[in-house]
């Protein structure tokens, strides 16, 4: 249409120049708006950073992890206990980035070989990691000592998380290959030691006496250096509110103790 107009003399030149200018201006505004929308991610990141999430094993340190993750969810697809979820747009830069809610479903290393790490195409879950013991997702911490049954010297009978709990765990003595629903396992413990009993890492957590008195049955969980922060203790803790949780603020979480 415009070339016909040109040929026929058409609308005055100035009007075409005006339209051209308006179009450039519109384009600049749209381009600026889209670029700004993407930059909002940085501002938003500062906000969500305050509540960091538990990342899958082998995740690089947070900033590197966010840069290296291509947001494809292949880690989600291979996890045998569906522990890994993908962040949504409310996580800004964490949109499409995997995380774990340990209380709902912890990483129990049912897969042995850290399948999520093998599935990751970019190394955002570091390919240097080949043993579960090398990971450092975080570290367990006794956050509510008052609710801890062992510290009260109490035992535990029944289902750790109630009958409607959806989480699964590897009960190796029953079935090494298939994680079982936690809701199908009754416990009868004279002293609650679920966090120690179900920990998938050797020597990561132990119960220590609270006093020198040998008749005192109270014990407190002590987290050791080997803890990888998988969150099984957090998932299995029967106390409400949960006594032990994973602190994800650790540095150098990508790998540690190489060759250990």
């Amino acid at each position, binding site marked *: 249409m415009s*070339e016909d107009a040109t040929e026929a003399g058409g609308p005055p030149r100035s009007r075409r120049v005006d339209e051209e200018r308006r*179009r*450039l201006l*519109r*384009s600049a505004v*749209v*381009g600026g708006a*889209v*670029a700004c*929308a*993407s*930059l909002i*991610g*940085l501002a938003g*990141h500062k906000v969500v950073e305050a509540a960091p999430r538990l990342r899958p094993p082998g995740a690089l340190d947070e*900033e*590197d992890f*966010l*840069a*290296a*993750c*291509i*947001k*494809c*969810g*292949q880690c*989600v*697809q*291979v996890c045998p206990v569906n522990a890994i*979820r*993908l*962040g*949504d*747009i*409310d996580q*800004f*830069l964490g*949109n*499409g980035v995997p995380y774990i809610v340990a209380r709902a479903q912890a990483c129990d290393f049912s897969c042995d070989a850290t399948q999520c790490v093998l*599935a990751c*195409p*970019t*190394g955002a879950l570091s390919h240097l990691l080949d043993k579960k013991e090398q990971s450092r997702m975080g570290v367990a911490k006794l956050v509510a000592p008052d609710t801890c049954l062992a510290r009260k010297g109490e035992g535990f009978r029944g289902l750790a998380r109630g009958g409607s709990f959806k989480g699964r765990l590897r009960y190796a003595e029953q079935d090494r290959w298939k994680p079982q629903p936690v809701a199908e396992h009754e416990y009868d413990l004279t002293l609650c030691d679920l966090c120690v009993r179900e920990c998938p890492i050797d020597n990561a957590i132990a119960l220590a006496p609270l006093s020198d008195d040998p008749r005192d049955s109270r014990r407190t969980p002590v987290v050791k250096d080997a803890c990888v922060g998988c969150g099984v203790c957090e998932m299995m803790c029967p106390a409400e509110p949960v006594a032990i949780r994973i602190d994800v603020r650790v540095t150098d979480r990508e790998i540690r103790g190489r060759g250990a």
Partner: protein
Amino acid sequence: MIVRLLQRKLRDLALMFGAAPKRPAPEEVSAEAVELLAFKKTPDERKRRKAAIADERAAKPPFPKWRAMRWASLFAVNGFFVLSYWLDLQLVEGALTASRIFGFHFADLNSALQLMLAHKHVVLNLVIGVTTVLLLYAIIGGRNFCSWACPYHFVSELAEMLHLKLAEKRWVKDHELDRRLRIVMFVVFALIAFVTSYPLFEWISPVGILSRALIYGTSLGLAWVAALLLVEIFWSRRFWCRYVCPVGLGYGLAGVSAPVRVMYDANKCLHEGKCRQVCLVPHVLDMTKLGYARDVTTPIGADCTRCAMCLDVCPTGALKFDILGVTRKQVEEESAEAPE
């Protein structure tokens, strides 16, 4: 021949980078095209074309069979991702940003670029994935990804239908933008990724958001997609695909010399312009204007998404799919047979 081919490729690239299409200078037009144009301008031919157009407009519009096939492809591609995960088939793993298909790495060109610029590492798996994707689309046609695989294209098509309905009633008006914006955005997003060390385009990319929403059910991001669609419905027709999306540009570059493309045959063309009206990238169809064709048959340039909407609306079959000159050969044979 070679020079002419190179000139055409350069023109296609310039068009993709946002240059306005130009009417060919007389010396650029082949002798056959000049002859054809002269024939088309004879009064008899004009009358015949006019009558044909009138007939065509009176008839019921044909069933859009290419669109049906393309939508089937869109559903199949995205459906494979979803089903493979939900049924645990492990054939197609991941999302459209990066995946393993039968174990082979695939990576979206722009996602991989964003990531490597932000992370400042060359990731071997991504290099493999990008190479696979480049090879694939270099054969089947770069922006095929857009119209045959991208889930945003599908919802954007629906938004476009609504936009056109509203525009017909004059309730909304399309605001065109400068196509060079897409190049600027590509560079801007690359720079942002490099400078901030975050692949910032990825968190707002509707391709990734929709792909993950389908596969993993992450739903909040759909609000952003909806906002983009509202802009497309009420303000600027298909603005994201046309003027912004760096993903499309990446695939366009991959398919610069793809053997699979749409071929234009000026012999059959009525110059009615329906193809340009339905086209996402009408600048690639500029030669369909009367007197704008440099040759009698011309392959459509690299920015074409091969969506085939033009094939669906073309009443004469002047636009057809072609694999490296097969159609051109047929045309030559037909015209060789015609005089007998």
